[in-house]
């Protein structure tokens, strides 16, 4: 138990010491997660809107499948993409394995169902008159969808925040596809996992506190963005 309080001091030290390795891990975490969440938003938001608005046979089943994808364990995503990126896999020649790009791809796979589901729920809860209003004012279906997203922007922002939280805090994909290589693909979470496996619980926890602080700053920033 002693390590709980110990780790707080440790975290403070880490932050103020600007330890180079910690900095590099923070930076890797940040840019892979940001890249992944941007891609997820680009795919997940339109997917959620489409699924929320359209009425076709099998829609319910598709929604249930999308729900199920939220249960994708990171190890499974890691395994599948590993198979694809590995030298014997279909994309092996690109040499993406154990690079940040591979991590971005894996995290995108994790975050997209989350973003899409959140947006879907927001669309279902939105006022039914929005689409008709936009269309009678002369919008195309696409423009009406864009306006809908603006009307439910609180829900959309929540979707992005949830997806971001998921990827910056996840370790399985980062580990399997990034490889936790010091100075290149070591993220905050893989560093935490490493320290923990070494038995350095206090240091691991300290890194966890640093990670949460980083996430807090990102969220504060997104919050400001939304307030505008």
């Amino acid at each position: 138990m002693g390590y709980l309080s110990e780790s707080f001091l440790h975290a403070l030290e880490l932050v103020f010491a600007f330890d180079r390795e910690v900095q590099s891990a923070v930076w890797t975490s940040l840019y892979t997660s940001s890249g992944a969440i941007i891609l997820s938003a680009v795919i997940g938001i339109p997917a959620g809107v489409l699924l929320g608005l359209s009425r076709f046979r099998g829609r319910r089943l598709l929604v249930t499948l999308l729900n199920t994808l939220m249960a994708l364990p990171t190890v499974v995503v890691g395994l599948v993409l590993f198979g694809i990126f590995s030298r014997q896999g279909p994309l092996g020649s690109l040499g993406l394995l154990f690079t940040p790009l591979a991590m971005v791809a894996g995290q995108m796979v994790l975050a997209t169902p989350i973003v899409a589901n959140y947006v879907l729920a927001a669309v279902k809860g939105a006022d039914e008159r929005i689409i008709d209003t936009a269309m009678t004012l002369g919008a195309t279906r696409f423009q009406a969808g864009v306006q809908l997203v603006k009307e439910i922007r609180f829900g959309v922002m929540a979707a992005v925040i949830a997806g971001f939280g998921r990827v910056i805090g996840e370790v399985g994909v980062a580990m399997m596809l990034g490889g936790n290589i010091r100075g290149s693909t070591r993220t905050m979470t893989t560093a935490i996992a490493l320290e923990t496996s070494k038995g350095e619980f206090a240091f691991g926890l300290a890194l966890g506190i640093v990670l949460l602080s980083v996430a807090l700053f990102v969220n504060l920033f997104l919050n400001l963005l939304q307030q505008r």
Partner: protein
Amino acid sequence: MEPIIRVKKLSLHRGENFSLSIEDLNLYPQQIYALTGANGAGKSTLLKTLALLITPDQGTVSIAAAMGGDLVQLRQQVTLVEQSPYLLNGSVSDNLAFGLKLRGIRGKEQQQRITSTLEMVGLAGLEQRKAKHLSGGEVQRVALARALVLQPQVLLLDEPTANIDSKSLQAFEALLSRLPDYGVTVVLSTHDLTQPARLGAQLIRIENGRLLDNLQRLTKHRNCKPTEKKQWLKPLRVQGL
């Protein structure tokens, strides 16, 4: 004269209890039509169908060819103000700007049109108010302004004066009754049976989803001189409001 909207053999189900079915209905340009009937008769449903927002199960709603080809072009010329209008998030002026932007009208012209239209509906100076913080009558005015500012060829109004105060009512009716002079065709629904006469409107009575009169025959026109469309905002401004 050619009708601007022609409804043929239309049939449309909503839920299990209501169906709208119209054999034949021609609406001529620069006329005012007043839709009356009991609650649940199908007025709003018909207006939504004319606004091309509901696709009928059978039959067709055709709009004069002159107004453009595809659905979006047509919807840009046929604008509906719903019975309980949804205002978009943002300011009053954002609401009016929305349709203008879609038509590529920006900058100064947008600004001017918004200002003069808001003046027209008695909301001068409310540009920056948040749309979600308006009173019932103010909402209805903004919704009307949001349609008027687009200067559509056909204006569909679902009980547009239901929440308008008694002092402004006269000014509103004056405004509406002069729209045909500027090339606009107006179809409005109302429960005020004295209103159609004041507007010089033709009655379309509807009951249980069916028209009570054969309106193909009733084609007597109001006479009005078509005017330069672009100018219609200026002369329309109503002092009394």
